[in-house]
């Protein structure tokens, strides 16, 4: 009983996480369901591996998936770069126009997707710009930048600058310091931001629906076929996407553990000291 009380919170967490995984579980489950190429029914009709073997048999699904991945990859790269630069500027420099920049970054996150999509459409229509991959790319970068800034910024805020200061003391030029110290230490944050941007892009339906013209991304394709009957390949691919995410995350975790192990090998950092300026700093290892 005491164990229950003490761990109530963790148990709750486990249940909550399980709840979040329910649809994934259902999707994965039905990717093994033996049914003619449509999965609309919650009733089970037998186990089969056929659809996993023929995962890439349906060309339409594949094309849509490839388009989505290309789009997500490109927009992630651009958004991550732009967003990281902006985060650096916002956190580390004092300058005028800060408030406006903040506003500009926060506004897209605070606007419903349908409004963003509609606004973009209005602009594209008025300029007579043809809708397609390019317009999708533009839209995806746009809504991802804000999220990248927020993630990288929060990482930057907790950043221990003593290493950079040490490098500067040793005569390294700012760019070198940035390249060899800042960037690698910032990497997990940037990676997290990139993952988020990628997920947002691959997932996007509303904005893409309005601005895609005739280009089909995975979500758009699913919307189309969901109306008549989803090919089981869709379940298979969705499960695959999930597994890829899990693998990526496992890699990040593993890399984290490696880094911690390496840190543990170094000599113990100093206990809390009074640094110049009179502030008490906790030892770096507690971060």
């Amino acid at each position: 009983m005491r164990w229950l009380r003490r761990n109530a919170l963790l148990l709750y967490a486990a249940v909550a996480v399980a709840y979040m995984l329910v649809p994934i579980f259902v999707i994965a489950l039905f990717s093994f369901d033996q049914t003619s190429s449509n999965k609309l029914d919650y009733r089970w009709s037998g186990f089969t591996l056929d659809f996993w073997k023929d995962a890439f048999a349906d060309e339409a699904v594949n094309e849509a998936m490839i388009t989505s991945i290309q789009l997500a990859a490109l927009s992630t790269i651009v958004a991550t770069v732009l967003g990281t630069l902006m985060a650096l500027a916002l956190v580390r420099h004092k300058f005028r126009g800060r408030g406006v920049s903040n506003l500009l970054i926060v506004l897209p996150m605070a606007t419903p997707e349908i409004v963003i999509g509609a606004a973009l459409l209005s602009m594209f229509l008025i300029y007579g710009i043809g809708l397609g991959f390019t317009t999708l790319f533009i839209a995806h970068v746009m809504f991802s930048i804000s999220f990248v800034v927020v993630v990288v910024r929060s990482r930057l805020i907790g950043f221990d600058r003593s290493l950079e200061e040490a490098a500067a003391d040793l005569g390294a030029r700012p760019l070198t310091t940035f390249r060899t110290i800042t960037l690698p230490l910032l990497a997990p944050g940037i990676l997290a931001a990139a993952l988020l941007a990628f997920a947002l892009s691959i997932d996007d339906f509303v904005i893409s629906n309005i601005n895609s013209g005739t280009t089909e991304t995975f979500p758009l394709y699913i919307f189309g076929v969901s109306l008549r009957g989803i090919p089981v390949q869709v379940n298979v691919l969705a499960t695959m996407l999930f597994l890829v995410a899990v693998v990526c995350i496992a890699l990040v975790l593993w890399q984290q553990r490696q880094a911690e192990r390496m840190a543990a090998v170094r000599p113990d950092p100093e206990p809390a000291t009074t640094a110049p300026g009179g502030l008490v700093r906790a030892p770096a290892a507690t971060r």
Partner: protein
Amino acid sequence: MRHRNPSTHSRGRAALMALLVLIFAVALAACGDDDNVGGGNESATQVAESGPVRGEITISNWPAYMDTGKDNTVNEFQNEKDVKVDYVEDVNDNAEFFGKLRPQLEQGESGGRSIFVVTDWMAKQMYDLGFLQELDHADLPTVFENLRPDLQSPSFDPERKFSVPWQTGLTGMMVNEQLAPDVRSVNDLFDPKYKGKVTMLSEMRDTVPLVMKADGVDVDEATKQDWLDAIDKLREAAESGQIRRFTGNDYNQDMTNENVVAAIGWSGDTSIIENEDVRWRMPTEGCIIWSDNMVIPKGAPNTAAALEWMNFVYEPEVQADIAEYVQYVTPVAGVDEVLRERDPALADNQLIFPDEEFTKDCSTQPDPPGSAEDRQEVTEAFQDVVTGRS
């Protein structure tokens, strides 16, 4: 922790910045294009050119209108004719598809598509706005040799100048015979017994004419007021919860899971619904017949190959493959003979090869009567019901 204290000084600056942005935007707008967004394409209608068949084409079609697995018709075509085909299933709704493509069509481009497949009324609208190319019958020998006689001169395109049917179909009712055995007319869908277990199509030209027919109106002679009255009837049913939702093709899932026991639906969908109790029924007052047509847009690349595709799918053997998969009404004559050898049950299926007796009370899909404004009014009224606006 330092707090931000927005002083009037920096607020003023923020306002200045906002003003600058606004000026910038207006300046951009000034360099922008037309004052006028929309409107049709004014250039002369051209005839699709034929020629040597090679290269590649892109075709836009509705989902599940062709087998896209291995050994499908596209692959056959690619192998036989040495043309690469990009077959895209991105037409989910006529209006939506048109809306998405419109900006490009106005510029005289087709978004890379050589063929789209759209329903009769949409094809006509596109043609009237100048977005389609005309088809020379001399280039389509197989098509016109095999096209069913009753489809040779439909009212929306009497000379078949711009459209070639891909499949035709019947709109009637999908009924779960176990749970709703006595639903025989569209009026039965309004029976309170089935409250909340009934859906109707969001395709105005299917749902409203059926409701009018059930009330004895001749849909070919209906007035705007008849349409609006039928829409009012639908509004009441929607508001009371009688109609669960207005659906596109997604009523299939609801019927499979028995969320819905009777619906307005399309004849070819029985093969998709995985519930043996569900059958398509011909309403006592008759059904609506429609066709989805292949059209060639202005600016379509490689029209020669597109025309060849049309000829190809009109060969009875090829069409038999399509008919077998899709199970809608095929527009090609002679396919029933081919299918009879493969599967006699299919050849006798009234939903694939309906005879005249079966469809005697059916009407072709009508358009709301009157001018473009009248049509807009009826469309808006219907959409308001679908989206629940009062």
